């Protein structure tokens, strides 16, 4: 599985490298389009298209029934009851493709979140690196080993109550750097990206197995028997928008997928 995830990482790395001259919003749009196409193909393959269409038609018929026979309360009431039943029927037929699509979507969302969710730290801009430890005594011995391009600009803040230490750092030059956290003789390496543009970023890193690896593919999960519980790097959030409207990557991405699916469904002859 780890090998497969590694391959997926590589595929995304190559894809982003190929599109790197494009603005992030355009890259997001390209991914939305690809997702729409893949979803439609998958839907056509795994769903019962005939029954899905039938369920949709019945829902449409019930809605029209309410309008056409509005002078007959019995018919209208029956139509509403049937509408619920037909909606459940539709959901039943939509559930199979939804479950099948959930797996690739999970992998995809993890990858896109690490690339579109945050922006790298701008050069000469301060940022926080926080770490949470398993035992309070680790706080006294924990230290950072920084590369020359990243400097500590304030003494670390110790919060014994949450077993946390926060370091305020400053990246001086664009690049990908390794920041090592030394605790009781163990070293935990973390990647810090300074610069602009799109890059794979790990804003959060926790202990865990495969699940953590899938949802946060930017870095390997922390060792399960190690002394560090969590490492966070305060990358700024990235916003996307048109005109005055802006949002995180997920909303425009989902909206563009929906639009893509609606526009392309006839072309692909897929019932959604």
């Amino acid at each position, binding site marked *: 599985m780890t090998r497969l995830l590694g391959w997926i990482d590589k595929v995304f790395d190559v894809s982003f490298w190929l599109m790197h001259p494009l603005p992030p919003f355009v890259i997001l749009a390209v991914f939305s389009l690809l997702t729409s196409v893949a979803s439609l193909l998958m839907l056509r393959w795994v769903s019962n298209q005939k029954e899905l269409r039938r369920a949709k038609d019945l829902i449409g018929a019930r809605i*029209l029934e309410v309008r056409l026979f509005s002078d007959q309360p019995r018919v209208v009431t029956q139509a509403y009851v049937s509408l619920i039943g037909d909606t459940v029927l539709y959901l039943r037929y939509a559930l199979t493709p939804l479950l099948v699509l959930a797996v690739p979507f999970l992998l995809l969302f993890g990858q896109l979140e690490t690339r579109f969710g945050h922006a790298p730290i701008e050069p000469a801009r301060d940022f926080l690196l926080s770490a949470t430890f398993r035992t309070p005594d680790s706080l006294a011995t924990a230290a950072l080993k920084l590369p020359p391009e990243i400097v500590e600009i304030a003494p670390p803040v110790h919060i014994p109550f949450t077993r946390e230490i926060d370091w305020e750092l400053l990246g001086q030059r664009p690049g990908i750097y390794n920041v090592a956290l030394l605790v009781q003789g163990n070293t935990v390496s973390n990647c810090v990206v300074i610069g602009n543009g799109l890059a794979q970023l790990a804003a959060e890193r926790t202990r865990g197995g495969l699940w953590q690896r899938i949802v946060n593919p930017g870095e390997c999960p922390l060792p399960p028997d190690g002394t560090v519980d969590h490492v966070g790097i305060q990358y700024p959030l990235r916003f996307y928008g048109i005109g005055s409207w802006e949002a995180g990557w997920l909303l425009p991405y989902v909206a563009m997928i929906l639009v893509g699916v609606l526009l392309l469904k006839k072309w692909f002859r897929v019932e959604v």
Partner: protein
Amino acid sequence: MTFVRNAGSDRGRVSELLLRVLAATALALVWAPVAHAYVGPGAGFAVLSSFLSLLVASLQTILAFLTWPVRQLFRFLRRRRAYSDARTTRAVIIGLDGMDPTLTERFLKQGKLPNLARLRERGTFRTLATTLPPISPVAWSSFLTGVNPGKHNIYDFLAVNRGTYFPELSSARIRGPKRVLKVGRHQIPLGRPRISRLRKSTPFWHYLSRVGISCSIIRVPITFPPEKFPGVLLSGMCVPDLQGSQGTFSFHTTRGKARLHGDNRVILTFEKRGTSFHSYIPGPPDTSRNESNRTLRASFSVAPAGSKGHATLEIDGRRILLSERKYSDWTELKFRTGNYTSVKGICRFYLKSIEPELELYVTPVNIHPARPALPISHPLAYSVYLAKMNGPYATLGLAEDTWALNDGFLDEKAFLEQCYLIHQEREQMFFDALDKTRRGLCVCVFDITDRVQHMFWRELGDDRSPVSGQGAMTTGTVIEELYQRMDNLIGRAMENMTDKDLLLVVSDHGFRAFERGVNLNTWLHQHGYLTLKEGAPAGDWFQGVDWGRTRAYFFGLNGVFLNVKGREGMGIVEPGQEAARLCAELREKLHGLTDPETSRTAILRAFESTKSYIGPYRENAPDLIVGFGDGYRASWDSVQGKVTTAVFEINQKIWSGDHCVDPSLVPGILFSNWKIGGDRHAITDIAPTLLHVFGTKIPPHMDGKPWDMQP
């Protein structure tokens, strides 16, 4: 497009921006210089009227919202009051087009129609007097309006254009949109096609629905274009296909080099490309181009499939597996115009044979019920509702393709299968409407009885036709089984009704054998009333007729028209006394006309329209209506407006039963679960009777009289 920022700073920036905008606006207003310009009263009116529009719209919305409960209460009370004088709260009328009383009686005696027998015992079974002439569009128009043809203006399927002597549909006229925008060779229609309804007078369900009685009307003939009324209606007979005709099928074959565009058919030869065979389905006229006679096409290809007896049809990117001698499901067809728009229709494919010749029959392209190119229901959404509820269905008025069987493109089994597939759809619609109409009126007309009897009457073997008893299915039980299926349908309808509900089972006319055809145009020619041009060949639609020397012509199924000066395009008969004298003369001569070969009476009576019809549209009627005798009908050539050499001819066609005879020979049936008094019941009486049953005032213009009925 992309913004990078710390999450917490967003709100601050928006507030700052808002403050700046507000400050700038306030500054501009405070420091605004005086405008030295004349502002006329128009500006004041504009401001005032915009304000008033907004105010009125807002008030209307509020009022509509506030009065919603009151309106609902009013509707509820109105509905309750609607039935206060009614003798029943529910009436169901099942129309069985052409169901014959004599045959019904015979099958009743044989105990083959148990449900109708039950109706007869508990209620009524009578014959129902039909109209003059006894043709479905005429009779059903009288059924729904309660008036004679002189008031509803329908005298036949076709009406003659008095200017050109060419046929036109009698019930509706479809024309292109009033305005089109012409851009080079292209044109963009500015508006919808114009559809005029030529049937006059008001259907009785309009009067019922106006007082709050719910009405569901399914496939009653001559209801196209659908009229607005507070109920639901699906149009029946006379709804055209997508080509605008009354049903044009296409037949595709590898045999010969056929290419024929006829009245009801298009015959095309497949073009072989590799292993597949290519052809096209003709669609509607292309209104996006200036060129006349250009029709849209849906191309398709057929290739034999791997398994024996199957072929794969590819159309519009879809693949459909066809089985030999089986109908496909309804298939959606898309006809793309030059304006990047499309018209949608539906059709079924029937793979007649794969070897030695590939032969494919395609039904007429029906108007898509879910995306109708023309309105086929009221409200428009009703046809969509039915399509969503039960799937696509035949929308064409004459959906059962009798022409394809008559001319040998379909065999009897295929024709019957088609009829019952269509009937199944109608049954679904009817039972859905019956379920919805627990209070009110539900009317549904089934056509299958008419179509099957036309084509299978010879199986009864009691006529003298040369095709009597012939055919691949000579079991002689097709009509019997048909009547039994109708009986079963009525039985299921009765299960959904109570004794208090009124059930009427009616037919518009009966049936007789069609053994010999009478060409009245030839008779008129032989008797000097119609003259042909010297040396000109006689053809369809009066080709070769010398109108300058013609005094009368036969048109349609029963009509003799005088060539009246000022009324007809090239009329020569003076209106008034000369016309009346000629009419009386023709009536005398046609009355009791005998067939010299059989010595039988070919024409029982001829009726003068001035004496038979009353109403404002009497002038559109034929001058004489011919009542053919038993076993006779207008010949096939005569109906096509062709003058031949013989007046009488044997009917060689499979179409062996008909009803275009004297009305006294073909009354319809009347069954009811209520006792009906009186001894004469006519189809025109149904409308006033239903109004009477629901306690609604009968309009004085109605010719029919309400029956005395007891539950």
